[in-house]
């Protein structure tokens, strides 16, 4: 009786183990399609604020589970939620401090027209020419901050996008400690 049990369980275990081994070999997925899918979601400006080498590196880290979905400052809360949905994880967004959308701004008084900022801009959001004041296209700027780093006169800064009647909305109600 005892032997019968041992033998049958051993056989069962061996058979299933073999099956898994075979499946692992023949049903293997080449590469991880997730990385490409995640990269599609990221801003693609390769700004490196997340600490990874460009958006591909960040996508790889996210797919490996080594990075938090809140890693991308330009993406903000919207991106974090999209990533959380893609990765099937619960993102604790209540703790994320979203500084709100930012935008690069050139202070005209101290801009010397050195062209460094528009050469480095990953989204061609800065327009200008040598010895001329540079301007920022709001619609194209991701606030990656690369221009801020290269500006020799600190005339480029990141500023919150001004709120307009079209973009304004109600704040989140803050309930007292009692509620």
């Amino acid at each position, binding site marked *: 009786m005892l032997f019968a049990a041992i033998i049958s369980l051993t056989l069962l275990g061996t058979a299933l183990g073999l099956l898994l081994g075979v499946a692992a070999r023949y049903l293997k997925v080449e590469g991880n399609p997730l990385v490409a899918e995640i990269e599609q979601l990221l801003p693609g400006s390769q700004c490196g604020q997340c600490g990874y080498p460009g958006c591909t590196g960040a996508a790889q880290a996210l797919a490996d589970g080594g990075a938090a979905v809140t890693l991308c400052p330009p993406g903000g809360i919207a991106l974090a939620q999209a990533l959380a949905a893609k990765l099937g994880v619960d993102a604790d967004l209540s703790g994320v401090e979203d500084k709100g959308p930012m935008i690069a701004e050139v202070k005209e008084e101290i801009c010397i027209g050195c062209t460094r900022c528009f050469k480095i801009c990953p989204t061609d959001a800065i327009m200008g020419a040598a010895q001329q004041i540079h301007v920022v296209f709001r619609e194209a700027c991701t606030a990656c901050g690369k221009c801020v780093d290269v500006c020799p006169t600190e005339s480029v800064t990141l500023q919150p996008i001004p709120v307009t009647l079209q973009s304004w909305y*109600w*704040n989140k*109600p*803050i309930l007292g*400690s*009692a509620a």
Partner: protein
Amino acid sequence: MNPIAHSPHAHAPASIGKVMATVLLALVPATLFGFWLYGWPAVNLWAVALIAAIAGEAFVVRMQGRKVRTVIMDGSGILTAWLLALSLPPYAPWWIAVLGSLFAVIIGKQVFGGLGQNVFNPAMAARVMLLISFPLEMTTWVAPSQAPGLLESLRITFLSQPIDGMASASLLGHVKTEFTRGIGLDQALVGYYTPMDMLWGSRAGSLGETAAVLLLIGGLFLIARRIITWHAPFAMLLGVAVPALLFNAIDANHYAGPMVHLLSGGLMLGAFFIVTDPVTSPNTALGQFIFGLGCGMLTWIIRTWGGYPEGVAFAVLLMNAATPIIDQYVKPRIYGRDRKGVALVVKKEL
């Protein structure tokens, strides 16, 4: 903070405190009747339960660093202790009330995060805890004939003075005991069941559960004040009465009739004051109906086939656990959508 207030700029004159106060008011007649019926021990027990609940809640809330006054003044702790007291045997010792009250407000409510967060009805959770931990104290009933004086009552409540000679049994307990002795309902009910006494509550039982009529009046008052709706109470009474009627028709000697069930035990208190607890019951009218029906049927099943003579508390806790599931599946239909949430399709007439 945004100094601009969001609409609406008008609010109905309602508050949580007012809701709780109205429910307490509805409990007053049945409570006073209990005091009159069982005398001073009942008053002592009730007072001890309330004081313990307030003190216990204040202690816990202070530990959490929240405002004690706001939490006590919402009245929910008092209501919980009051309901628990009404469901205790009137001559129970003081520590039963203290233990029950503390369990109700601390384990039953504050541990979950305070008012509105608890899964189970705190009063019923405490009652079940007491019943399975101290079965003797929780099932020692007295006949309402000899009301003791104040001094003697203090001895009963605080010194656990033996109350031999006054001990009696509740109707449901009596029936269950008689069944085990092989005695049928026709004999068991003799001398125990007189419909008028059951209605007016002049019998052995819990402190405030016996006066069916007064509880009914309190419940109707709450319905009239729109604090509760009829769905859950009606469904609970239905859930007890329908199976009782059916089985009584099949074998009247084994299964008590609907009136016996409706008027005994904690059913009236449960139907109007326990299953209507908003926190632990479903959101929608249909959900509340299902919830009440489940409470009623489980009560009848436990009473009829279970180990305990009374089943209201168990039934309520079981249905409390089912509340999230009911809420998940019973949702109102949204305007412009069908029951599944799909947008309505326009019928082209042209």
